[in-house]
């Protein structure tokens, strides 16, 4: 079964066409990287997938249903937004923030039970920050914060994980560490992953397939095909002959060689 299906999707925002005739499918268990230049409509694509912006025409299916009709099943989708910082003074602990991801699973009074706290601890354990559960959320480092938001996205039985620029603001080692964790979780929890990034190199080294958009879909395929495609140059309006070497360099850093 396909986890995500975009069928001739058009999105207009404030009278401007942001996405035009976008069609693709993501099989369950796949890792789709979404790339494109600034202003290409990558975040809008994710927001349409999540039902946060209306589709002007065409249709989107997420886990077999239209996003707006997911209702109580919305917890099957975990969302890690583009977020570089959280207010240092936000009055909640890491555990409280992760618990927010389980609100859909609680009763009418939204009072966490011991099973909810157990799931929170498990999610924090998955991302390797169980020891930070009682720390104020605003006192985490950039890398710890990404892990906390990832734990929030995972703590309600998530099947599809959607990430928007999850490594923006991180240095290269932290970025590689984050993507390594993501790949590990994808396998361990049998997740489908859709990840947007402006960082073509990073995504090309991690994703099982890539799409490149710039308002329209330019190319969809495995990273090797996409990186060497002529369509990529069209999307970015520049040459990408250096890419093969850069990706090899990136992979060497990832493996620690």
């Amino acid at each position: 079964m396909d986890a995500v299906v975009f069928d001739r999707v058009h999105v207009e925002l404030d009278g401007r066409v942001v996405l035009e005739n976008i069609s693709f499918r993501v099989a369950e268990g796949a890792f789709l990287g979404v790339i494109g230049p600034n202003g290409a409509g990558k975040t809008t694509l994710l927001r349409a997938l999540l039902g946060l912006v209306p589709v002007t025409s065409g249709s989107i299916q997420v886990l077999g249903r239209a996003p707006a009709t997911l209702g109580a099943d919305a917890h099957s989708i975990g969302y890690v937004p583009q977020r570089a910082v959280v207010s240092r003074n936000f009055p909640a602990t890491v555990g409280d923030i992760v618990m927010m991801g389980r609100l859909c699973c609680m009763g009418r009074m939204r009072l966490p039970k011991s099973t909810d706290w157990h799931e929170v601890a498990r999610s924090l354990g998955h991302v390797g920050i169980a020891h930070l559960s009682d720390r104020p959320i605003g006192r985490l480092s950039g890398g710890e914060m990404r892990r906390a938001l990832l734990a929030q996205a995972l703590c309600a039985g998530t099947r599809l994980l959607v990430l928007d620029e999850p490594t923006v603001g991180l240095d290269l080692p932290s970025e590689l560490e984050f993507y390594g964790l993501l790949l590990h979780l994808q396998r361990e929890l049998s997740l489908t992953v859709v990840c947007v990034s402006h960082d073509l190199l990073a995504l090309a080294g991690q994703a099982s397939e890539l799409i490149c958009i710039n308002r329209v879909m330019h190319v969809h395929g495995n990273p090797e095909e996409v990186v060497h495609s002529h369509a990529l140059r069209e999307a970015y309006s520049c040459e990408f002959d250096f890419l093969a070497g850069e990706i090899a360099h990136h992979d060497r850093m990832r493996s620690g060689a």
Partner: protein
Amino acid sequence: MLEFAFAQRALAAVVVVGLLCGLLGFFVVLRRLAFIGVGISHSAVGGVAIGLLLGVDPSLSAAVFAILVALAMSWIARSRRISEDAVIGVFLSASMALGLVLLSLRHGFQQDLFGYLFGSVLAISAAELAAIGGLAVLVSGIVFVTFREMLFVAFDEEVARAYGRPVDALDAVLLVVLAVTIVAGVRVVGVLLIEALLVVPAATAALWTLDFRRQIALSMGLGAASGVLGLTLSYQFDVAAGGAIVLVAVTCFFASLLVRRGQ
């Protein structure tokens, strides 16, 4: 002073309003709603004037008018054609102007106006106290049930929306309970100072802890304590109760600021 029934009612009122403002103040400070709170409190003047002219209970008309103004300000600001502070500025001025014009049609309007602008806690009747208590229970219950969802919206509105949380409805609920709280507090400290009781104890509590449970408890405690101490000082020195209550709260804030800056 507690040998007098009016003083007992005043004391009960400042405690209840202090606790309630401390609770709602947590969200006012967290979500930076201080200016919208000013807009709502000033709109109460228009609502009071309408009530007095129509022969309806002024507190009821003020509550209805304040709720409508709060929702209208929020709705227009969400359209993003004009900034939120400009929308609040327009509604604040319009409500005050409407109130002044309507009240000026009555004889002795200055006395009505003075009471609502600066509060008249010593004149609170048993029925008004019961109404304030009832509203406090209602508002606290609503906040209790929606608390974690409201906290989620405060943390990240977009993610809350993506997870199917009813963000717009939660925002509307928050504005309604804020408007109700403000109208309940207007009798105690007045239109001009109710905002201080919403913001100052919560801001003081935020200086001491980053745990929302402790922050809310501290904010409510400071709100009630400011009320009791302010009312006592007002009785001892024969000064305006509303002003004395707010000055106590503000003194706690600056003392906390000094202590916490040194740490």
